[in-house]
């Protein structure tokens, strides 16, 4: 008798997470319509797609764009309140609204600045570039956590790799490029693996709390690299060195508009894409990937079919460390040639947020990393544009804080529904 009553109950419109999000967008839309749009002056602004001179250009009046987006936001709010039957459409609208935030901010920034144009392709490529270490860090975290080991030491792994790699580069090759640069990148990768092996030893073998081990690694990396810098790099008088150089991918770099910007880039940038794809392939398409996932979900079940959980966890954590090592090399040998204390500056933690955002899956985690790359690129771009609200020039600290604020929003908004691997964070003890 009750079976029929249930669906009726479920279709009642309830104020849930989706509705709240929808209402926030609706409020934002009304704000834009009532306050922002009327105060904008008519202007000729544009998005360009190539480097000057004579770039392709999409010209617009910021007011009409803002009004159009605001109407969409209000529509999203209305759809979200229509009830459960519109849940699918609501989700699509909310996702679209979130994606539209990026051009909206850009249009607003342009409207509020002196400049007329901004190159959106270079902004996209810059996002990918700045997202590179975050994506690599996220892949590191993914391998560790899919095998059941929480890793908040990604930051330390990257920092140690950056520091040790550059030290080797400075000592052996005077930071002057050539073969030593590649050797140093290899050393950085191995350093990441070595630190990860320490994490595995402490958490898998000694079953120390995984979060504490991560903190220890971060602290150790900070001490070790500061020591190397002041004791080895500084006395040699090397402050900057030659970083990896830009590679033109044949044929692809000839593609009009995007080719010269996307396919003329540096090696670790390209490797990052390969690693993301390889991570997905190995995790979901190979026997070893299946075993790694089984250890993260139910290590005791894995043990009963003869899988050596400890070995798999070591392998996965060390593999993650090697990937983080490459991310570290990006800081000191690709982004720039040089090492400063604490130069990773929280990227490892942002990578962790990207991983959670991507719900422990390779491509969504990559997308999360790119979101953070984008907020960073946007911050820099806004600084260049010099955005002013009235007389108040928005301080650079505001833009710099964007990735952190976005991380909090993402973690608070996504984790509630994101389910980590079931055995993530739990030490595994072999049956005795």
């Amino acid at each position, binding site marked *: 008798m009750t079976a029929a009553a249930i669906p009726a109950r479920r279709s009642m419109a309830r104020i849930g997470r989706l509705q709240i999000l929808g209402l926030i967008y609706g409020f934002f839309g009304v704000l834009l319509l009532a306050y922002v749009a009327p105060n904008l002056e008519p202007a000729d602004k544009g998005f360009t797609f190539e480097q000057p001179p004579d770039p392709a250009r999409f010209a617009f009046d910021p007011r009409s764009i803002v009004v159009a987006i605001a109407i969409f936001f209000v529509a999203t709010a209305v759809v979200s309140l229509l009830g459960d039957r519109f849940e699918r459409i609501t989700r699509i609208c909310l996702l679209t609204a979130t994606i539209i935030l990026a051009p909206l901010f850009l249009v607003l920034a342009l409207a509020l600045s002196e400049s007329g144009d901004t190159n959106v392709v270079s902004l996209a490529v810059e996002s990918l570039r700045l997202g590179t270490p975050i994506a690599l860090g996220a892949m590191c975290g993914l391998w560790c956590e899919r095998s059941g080991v*929480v890793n*908040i030491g990604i930051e330390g792994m990257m920092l140690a790799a950056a520091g040790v790699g550059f030290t080797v580069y400075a000592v052996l090759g005077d930071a002057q490029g050539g073969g030593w640069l590649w050797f140093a990148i290899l050393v950085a990768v191995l350093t990441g693996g070595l630190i990860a092996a320490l994490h595995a030893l*402490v958490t898998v073998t*000694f*079953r*120390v*709390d*995984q*979060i*504490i*081990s991560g*903190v*220890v690694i*971060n*602290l*150790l990396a*900070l*001490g*070790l690299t*500061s*020591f190397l810098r*002041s*004791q080895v790099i500084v006395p040699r008088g090397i402050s900057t060195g030659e970083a990896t150089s830009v590679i033109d991918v044949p044929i692809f770099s000839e593609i009009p508009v995007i080719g010269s910007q996307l396919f003329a880039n540096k090696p670790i940038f390209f490797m990052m894409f390969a690693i993301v794809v390889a991570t997905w392939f190995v995790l979901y398409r190979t026997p070893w990937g299946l075993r790694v996932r089984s250890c993260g979900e139910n290590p005791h079940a894995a043990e009963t079919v003869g899988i050596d959980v400890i070995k798999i966890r070591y392998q996965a954590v060390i593999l993650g460390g090697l990937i983080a090592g490459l991310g570290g090399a990006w800081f000191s040998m690709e982004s720039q040639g040089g090492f400063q204390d604490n130069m990773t500056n*929280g990227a490892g*933690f942002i990578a*962790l*947020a990207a991983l*959670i955002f991507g719900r422990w899956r390779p491509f969504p985690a990559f997308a999360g990393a790119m979101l953070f790359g984008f907020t960073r690129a946007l911050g820099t771009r806004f600084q260049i544009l010099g955005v002013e609200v009235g007389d*108040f*020039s928005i*301080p650079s*600290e*505001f833009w*710099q*804080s964007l990735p*952190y*604020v976005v*991380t*909090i929003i993402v*973690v*608070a*908004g996504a*984790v*509630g529904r*994101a*389910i*980590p691997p079931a055995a*993530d*964070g*739990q*030490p595994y003890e072999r049956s005795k």
Partner: protein
Amino acid sequence: MSAPTTTEERAPRRGMHHMVQRYFDLQPILVPIAAIFLALAVGAVVILLVGENPLTAYWALLRGMFAPDRIGATLGRSTPFIGAALGVAFAFRAGLFNIGVEGQLLIGATAAAWVGTWAWVADLPAVAAVVIALVAAVIAGGLYGAIPGALKARTGAHEVIVTIMLNNIAILYVRWMVGSQDPVILRDMSASVPRTATLPRNARLPELVGSEPRVHVGFLIMLGLCFFVWFILQRTTTGFEVRTVGANASAARYAGIGVGRVIILVMALSGSFAGLAGGGEVAGQSYFLSPGVFVAVGFDSIAIALLARANPFAIVPAAILWGGMLAGAPLMQQETGLSIDVVRIIQALVLLFVAADVIVRTIFRIRHTGESKGAMAEARLGAEWGSVA
């Protein structure tokens, strides 16, 4: 009833030997001491590798820490560590990992530097002015700590990530508030570098020893705070709730404890301890705030809390040791030419060996009694990774 089965004999046996072990159990002290020795030994290898004599270096470090003319500096240096580490330890007991003490410290310090320079505060009697500045620090730190608590309780956002992000945000915005010239917010325009105005004399904590850094009344406040935290945890119903949530959140919910409420409360209190430590530094040490002062204090406090195994009283010696090493390092650098970062490596190793006590126990053959793993045994941090509270 069936005859007593062997399974029921698993609890430790009674007897003289057991009683002795129970009341004179040196384990909680033995492991950290052994860990320190092990860390010094590994550190010695590092020092040898760069061609210095570890014994000379350590002797200089020791004199830098505890020589009669230097002990004041050690105590002065360790004062903020006590409060911040208490914040970390208190959160540990509820199974929460507050990495955000650095931000909470900074926010507390900013509040004290701001409120302490209000004109009407300067006209108050000395005790009242200082109290107002410190209360502002406590409230500000507490509110800043409550944010990750509320997010964890309401949305399940893991406090580790949120607090790290809030640290970065605090550092950026404090830098802006203290540094901005247009508009002027907290910057003292008469100073050549970004910093706040100096606190009036009656908003300062009295000095006890004129060392550099000095020992001020804040040190005594921190000792009192240790007792306060111990009392809350062990003697009050709130402390019981906190420890229950830390040891088994599901059982806490079953027992009718509002887990979300406890999480928010604990994070707020934890943040307020850190805020008090930060405010104390402004009111007792520097008398003004310049951006970037508390770099690494947050991670140091975590290390100290772990070293003390989240025991409020053990935090005092742990903080003195930690602060002393930092205060003594310059003498070592002066006498041997070693970078002060050696101390950082040794500290990280100490923490490693304390956390991985199995290593230490194996090397020094310290036996496990099973029952006395200390406060840290109750709560497990990693297990609730990403799960909704």
